[in-house]
C-alpha cells in the first residue's frame, strides 16, 4: 500500500502518455506512476474531454490538475503526455514527434488502424523508446533495430523448425 511519503518521492518527469482518437476512444495508455485502476479511468475520461474541447488555434500546452499536459494531434490521433511542472514542454513535443516517427518507420506510413490492430507492437516500440518516461536511446535507428531483432526472436518462437525440418528431411 503506498503511503503519502512514497507518493512524494515518486516524482517522475513524465507521469503518463495517452493516445486517443477524436471520438474519444483510447488507443494506448502508458502510466509511469502507480495509480489505481479507478483513478486511471477517471483521469483518462476527464483529460480526453479537456483536450478534445481545445480549438485548433490554441497552444499545445495546458494546465490540468497539478500537471502540465503536452499534446499534439497527428491525423486522427491525439498524443498526450502529462509532465511535471518544471519540464521543458518544447522538448516534450519533440519526444512525441520522435515516437510518431518510430511508429511511422515501423508500420510504414502509420495510421490509426495500425495502432488499433497492432496495439501490442505500439507498446513494444514505446517501451523500447522510453523507460520511466525517459528516452533510452536518442538514435532512431538504434530503437528500430532493437525492435526488429526482438520481432525476429518472436518469429523464431512461432515457427520452430523440427529437427527433421532442420535437416531438410520433412
Amino acid at each position: 500500500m503506498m503511503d503519502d511519503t512514497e507518493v512524494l518521492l515518486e516524482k517522475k518527469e513524465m507521469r503518463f502518455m495517452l493516445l486517443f482518437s477524436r471520438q474519444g476512444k483510447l488507443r494506448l495508455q502508458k502510466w509511469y506512476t502507480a495509480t489505481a485502476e479507478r483513478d486511471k479511468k477517471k483521469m483518462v475520461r476527464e483529460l480526453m474531454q479537456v483536450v478534445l474541447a481545445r480549438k485548433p488555434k490554441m497552444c499545445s500546452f495546458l494546465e490540468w490538475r497539478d500537471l502540465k499536459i503536452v499534446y499534439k494531434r497527428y491525423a486522427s490521433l491525439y498524443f498526450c503526455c502529462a509532465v511535471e511542472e518544471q519540464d521543458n514542454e518544447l522538448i516534450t513535443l519533440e519526444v512525441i514527434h520522435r515516437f510518431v516517427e518510430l511508429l511511422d518507420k515501423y508500420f510504414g506510413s502509420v495510421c490509426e488502424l495500425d495502432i488499433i490492430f497492432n496495439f501490442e507492437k505500439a507498446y513494444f516500440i514505446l517501451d523500447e523508446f522510453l523507460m520511466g518516461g525517459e528516452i533510452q536511446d536518442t538514435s532512431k535507428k538504434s530503437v528500430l533495430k532493437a525492435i526488429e531483432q526482438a520481432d525476429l526472436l518472436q518469429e523464431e518462437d512461432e515457427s520452430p523448425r523440427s529437427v527433421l525440418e532442420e535437416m531438410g528431411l520433412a
Partner: protein
Amino acid sequence: MPAPIRLRELIRTIRTARTQAEEREMIQKECAAIRSSFREEDNTYRCRNVAKLLYMHMLGYPAHFGQLECLKLIASQKFTDKRIGYLGAMLLLDERQDVHLLMTNCIKNDLNHSTQYVQGLSLCTLGCMGSSEMCRDLAGEVEKLLKTSNSYLRKKAALCAVHVIRKVPELMEMFLPATKNLLSEKNHGEILHTSVVLLTEMCERSPDMLSHFRKLVPQLVRILKNLIMSGYSPEHDVSGISDPFLQVRILRLLRILGKGDDDSSEAMNDILAQVATNTETSKNVGNAILYETVLTIMDIKSESGLRVLAINILGRFLLNNDKNIRYVALTSLLKTVQTDHNAVQRHRSTIVDCLKDLDVSIKRRAMELSFALVNGNNIRGMMKELLYFLDSCDPDFKADCASGIFLAAEKYAPSKRWHIDTVMRVLTTAGSYVRDDSVPNLIQLITNSVEMHAYTVQRLYKALLDDISQQPLVQVASWCIGEYGDLLVSGQCEEEEPIQVDALEDEVLDVLEGLLVSNLSTPVTRAYSLTAIMKLSTRFSSVNRIKKVVSIYGSSIDVELQQRAVEYNALFKKYDHMSPNIAVITIHATNSTEADMTEFVFQAAVPKTFQLQLLSPSSNVVPALNQGSVTQVIRVLNPQKQQLRMRIKLTYTHKGSPVQDLAEVNNFPPQSWQ
C-alpha cells in the same frame, strides 16, 4: 476444443458491433472462453488469450482475472510469451496488489538471461513499475548491469537505476562506483543520454552527490561542444540539429551543477553563450534547446551579459508566430521578473499585447506578468490595458484580474481620485466577480479618502441607478450612501467637474428600499441596505419614513434582517427624544481682488452644546477676480435644538502678506436649527 480466435480477428469482430450492448455481449462471450482456457492451464494459447484480454482491458472492461496468467507467461521460456507477459504485467498489475511481488523472482532470472532482449524486457518492467520491495531485492542485479560492456543493457540499466533511486533513495550510494566512467569517451555515445539522466537524478537528490559530480562540468562542456561542432549524423539529428535530446539533458545537468557555484558557472559560461547564439531557431527543436539554455543561464551564477542575452531570447520568443514558443516565454519571464525586473520591463509592451491572444493559457500568463510589471511609473498606462482586459476576458479570469487591479491601485495610485475612479470602474464592469473580501477593503479605502467622500458617494449612487445586479458594487454603494448620504443630497462635490446627480432624500430612500425588495439582492446586500437606511435617520429629515421601513422588516422572514430591524426599532424608541438635527452648511469663498488668496484656511467655532465637523476644503487658493471659488462643507450637530451661532476665522496670504479676519455669524435661518 477449437483453437481460441486470434487477436486480430477478435479486434475485427468487436469493431463490427453497432451498439454498446452488442459489444458488451461479444466481450462477455470471449471472456468466458478465455476464462475456461485459463482454467485448463493451456500453455499454447495463453499468450494469445492474454493479448486479447489486454485489448478488452483497453476498451474499459475488467481484466483482473488475467493477472496470474501474465506471471505464468513471464515465467515461460518462449520470447513471445515473455513479451506479452511483461506487457500484461505493466498494464494489469501495480504495486498496490501483493501479487506483483510474485514477479520478483522471474525478473531476477531474466535480468541474467542469455538473450539481451529478455534482459531488456525485465529491466524495462522493473524500471517502469517496480515497487520499493522489488527494487530493494533487485538493485544489486541492476548495479551489475550498469557495469556491463553491453551498451544496449547499460543504457537500460541506467534508467532502471533512476527508478530504483526514486523508489528507495537510500540505495543511491550503491550505484556510485558504477557511475565512475559513464561519461568517458571510451564508451559508445549510446549510453550518454541515459548516463546524464542518472547523474542528474543523483545530483538532484543529494547535495553530497552534487558536490561530488561538480568535477564533471568540464567533461560535460566538452561533450556539448562536440555535439554543436559535429557534422551531420542522420541517426541522432532532428532538423539538422545534433542530438537535441542529449543537448537538453546536458544543459539541465549543467544547470544543477552550476547553481550557486561560481567556478562551475564560470566554466560553462562560454558554451552557454555559444549555444544561445548559434542554435537554429526556425523550428521547434532549436527553440527547445534555446529554452533549456535560457533556463540554465537564469539559474546559475551567470555574468550579467549572459543574463541579458537570455532575457532577450525570451523577448524574441514573445514575438514568435508559434504560440507554444510564446507560452514558454511568458512562463519563464514570470519566473525571472522578480530577479531581473528591469530587463523584463523592456519587453512590457509585447507582454501587454499578449493579453489579446486567443489562447487562454497565454492570456493568463500575460495577465500575471503584467501585474508583476506594474510600478509607479507605468501605472496609468498599464491600468488602462488591464481594465480593458477585465472588460473582455473570460469569466474565469475576472476575479483574479479584479483582485490584481485593486492591489496594484493600492500600491501605486497616483492620486486618490484616480484610485476611486479605478475602483469604481472595476465594480461597474466586473462587479459580480469581485471577491467578497474586497467589499470591506474598499469601504476602508473610501473611509480613508476623506476628501473624496462626496465624489465617491455621488458616483456610486449614479452607478446604482444604472444597475443593481452586481452585489459587491451594491454593497459598497449602500454603505457609502448610509455613511455619506448628507453629502449626496447636498450636491456638493470637491472635484472641479461635479457629477450631475440630483438626489433628493426620498429618491435615495427609494433606491435603498428598492434594494431590499429586489430579487437580485442577496441577503448580505439586504442587510447592508437596511443598515444604510437606518443610518440615514441621523442624516436625513425623513425620519418617519425610515421608521416605517425599519418596522416592516421587524417581521421579515430573513432572520438577519429581522434581528437588525428589531434592534434599530429599539434604538428609535430609546433615543427618540434625542433625535439630533444636523445642519449641513456649505461655504463658498470668492475673491474679487486682483491677486490670489493663497494658503486659505477657514476655521469655525460653535457654542458648547453643538458639535462641529469641518470637511476638507476644495482647495486652499481662492483665485483672483472671481475666477473660481473655494467650497467647504460644515456639519453641525445640534441635539438640543438651540439657536445656531458661529464664530469664524479666515486666514490667508494676499500679495505676499498674511491676512487674518474674524467674524461672528448669527443670522442662520431658523430652519437650520429647529
